[in-house]
């Protein structure tokens, strides 16, 4: 087991290195650089000044040298300075991480709270009106992009209450009410879509499990139905659901670009898009590496989770 975990951890190194190489190359293939964007048109400056500015950012160095410098910084835990603001990338990430994490956690709680009971109910009451209602609810969630739902929410709040969520983030520990007043709406919009995927997965996984021999055995030995469902059915059906929930959670760290814009949230998703459009190489590279690391870490946690859910699973 221990050996397996160590080998899994070591496997992350080539994965992350591959991400680093691809990110670095792709970014350099996009035309235009930060100097051109900042001073290309508005500033009355000559080509010499632009060249000097490029040299200041290290953009005049050969690509392999730029890559090695960045990678060496990364190994030492130094993400470098944002080319746009000049502030440390770690600082820029840190001020946005709290909001992004909280939103991801809130959306996950909403999704899990909706998905597991609704998916279970739909499977148990298969082909009844309850099942149909849950399926319509989940298909609607899949069909509606969360940012669109967010726009609709804001519109309704404006029309009926002449109110919209606060535009500046207040940390939960400073003022829980102000914090929740702002984040509950995007969490609902994202959580609903997120729950739709998980609900459908829960329903189909449970339907499959309920046809297994051990369920028939449990029923035959006279176990109460709800215990059959909860103890033997739901627990075994959770494996694929946990995978979906885990991957969706990883996606939420940096993937909520449009929803963050609609609600004017200062999160990592918006930062990634802005960094790319500003050709802020150091920031973009760091954020993509962070996102990749989150995916790798979540997958690792999922593997551990499988063992807890299904004791038959043993890694060697």
């Amino acid at each position, binding site marked *: 087991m221990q050996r397996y975990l160590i080998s899994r951890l070591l496997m992350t190194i080539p994965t992350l290195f591959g991400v680093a190489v691809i990110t670095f190359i792709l970014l350099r293939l996009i035309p*235009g650089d930060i100097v051109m964007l900042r001073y290309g048109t508005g500033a009355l400056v000559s080509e010499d000044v632009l060249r000097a500015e490029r040299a200041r950012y290290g953009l005049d160095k050969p690509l392999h040298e730029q890559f090695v410098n960045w990678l060496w910084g990364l190994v030492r835990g130094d993400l470098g300075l944002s080319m746009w603001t*000049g502030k440390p990338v770690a600082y820029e990430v840190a001020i946005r991480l709290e909001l992004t994490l909280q939103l991801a956690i809130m959306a996950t709680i909403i999704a899990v709270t909706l998905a597991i009971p609704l998916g279970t109910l739909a499977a148990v009451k298969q082909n009844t009106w309850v099942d149909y209602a849950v399926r319509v609810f989940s298909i609607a969630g899949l069909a509606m992009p969360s940012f669109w739902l967010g726009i609709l929410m804001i519109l309704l709040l404006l029309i009926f209450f002449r109110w919209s969520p606060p535009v500046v983030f207040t940390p939960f520990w400073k003022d829980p009410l102000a914090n929740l007043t702002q984040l509950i709406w995007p969490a609902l919009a994202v959580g609903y879509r997120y729950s739709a995927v998980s609900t459908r997965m829960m329903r189909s996984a449970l339907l499959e499990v309920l046809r297994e021999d051990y369920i028939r055995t449990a029923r035959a030995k006279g176990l109460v139905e709800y215990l059959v469902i909860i103890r033997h059915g739901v627990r075994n059906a959770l494996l694929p659901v946990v995978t979906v929930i885990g991957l969706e959670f990883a996606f939420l760290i940096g993937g909520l670009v449009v929803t963050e814009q609609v609600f004017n949230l200062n999160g990592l998703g918006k930062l990634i898009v802005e960094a790319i459009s500003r050709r802020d190489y150091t920031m973009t590279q760091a954020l993509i590496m962070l996102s990749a690391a989150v995916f790798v870490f979540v997958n690792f946690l999922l593997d551990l989770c499988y063992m807890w859910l299904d004791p038959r699973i043993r890694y060697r």
Partner: protein
Amino acid sequence: MWKRTGMLLLVALFLASCAPTAPSQPTAPQPAEEQPRYGGELVFAVDAEPPSLDAHRETTFAVIIPLAPFYSTLLKFDQNNYPKVVGDLAESWSVSSDGLVYEFKLRDGVKFHDGTPLTSRDVVATYNKIIFPPQGVISARKALYAAVESIEAPDTRTVRFKLKYPSASMLANFASGWNWIYKAEIVEKDPRWYEKNVLGTGAFKFVEYVPGSHVLGRKNEDYFIKGRPYLDGFRAVFMTDRSAMVAALRSGQALINFRSVTPQERDDLVRALGNQVVVEESPWICSQMVVLNNEKPPFNDPRVRRALTLAIDRWGGSQYLSQFTFLKHVGALMRPGGPFAMPESELEKLPGFWRDINKSREEARRLLREAGVPEGFAFVLKNRNIEPYPSLGVFLIDQWRQIGLRVEHQLLETGPWTQDLRTGNFEAMLYFNCDFMDDPDLQLLSFISPERSPVNYARYRDPVLDDLYDRQSRELDPEKRKQLVWQFERRAVGEMAYQLPTLWWNRIVVRWAKVKGWRITPSHYINQDLVDVWIAQ
């Protein structure tokens, strides 16, 4: 639950669709005798974020709007009487009769926010950084002060600028909203300190800047104008998404966006809020032009370029495009309605500005025949992918189609667009220019030879225009200067048609009626110190 939610959605959509389509605009100006009220925090939306905090090196409004309240300038524009210049840090000033010496007397008792007094040394250090920047320090508007020979501080309250030659626009340049006065001790030690830090003498003291979120300022109790500012503080909130910005304005989470809103956003806000908001509009010192690459045939032929400008119905385009974009005013190179604008009767004589578009297009076809391309030709119009560029691009392509030109519209992201513009990798390109004041030195700069202008992207050399530019720049008689400017316009836009002006922007500011003491000016780069702003309730 389902039913109720569905009904709620339907009702909301119904209400939205039933709203009146042509809202009337409340434009009631505040009564002059209204007594300003102290207190309150002004929350306003800023639709971009500053790349750094140093206005001397940056060119975006995202630096000016949230940070100007922390700083003072030597002079400033009078918001009630633009383009009149009034003192900010300067108590008085004089200009020598030959126009070669400008002397400013500074106010007494001005303090930086760290408590140290402001002296003429600070002004000298600031302007040295702007005009003679040290190696490696970018000064975005250094070129505007080419006439300045030296800056001196004869005593602690006097600053003297000596010029190499007279410059008609120099005084107004000292009112530039970009020229924040920095502390000499800091600038001399580290000229890049102000890129990441804030320390000025403005009406508000810096509290915090949270990247991606907001800038916070609180009242400067030691401000040099007694009794100002009225506000306790302000919060500039960055909102890059326009729907979020409009929602915030609509709900009162933000009370104003100082830059501008689009005509549709204005209508939405007026429809929703009625007389709770006030709309102010002004021709904007921002214009959109077609840059033709004069090095690439057939654009090296003035007949072809004239044909292209003659095909554009600017008067008609103004009517359509102004309904949904910033584009509105018809003018040549100087802002319509501005102090240097060519009168409409004169403007209508310029090719491309004729009222009779059929006659204009007939002339365009004749010129194409004369240039040896009677069947027209094909070319690519490279364009930026943000509004109002694409709308204008579509309009222009349709205009040119009517004289037989086949134009491919290529939309580019800002990075590649800028790169192609600067490297000359284009045939025709849409470009824009925004300035902080109406001044021929600024607005005509992109039309003089590239050796002298880093912004002549059309890649031509014209000694006649260069000479006219210099003459108008040094002409101290306003009337004579205006004549020289018009002469320049007739050649650059009419006779040679090097680059084609299209339409000037219209600035639209919607503010909650309770926000008082602020008036629209033709530029969003000025009048942002918030000194006179107050909130009524």
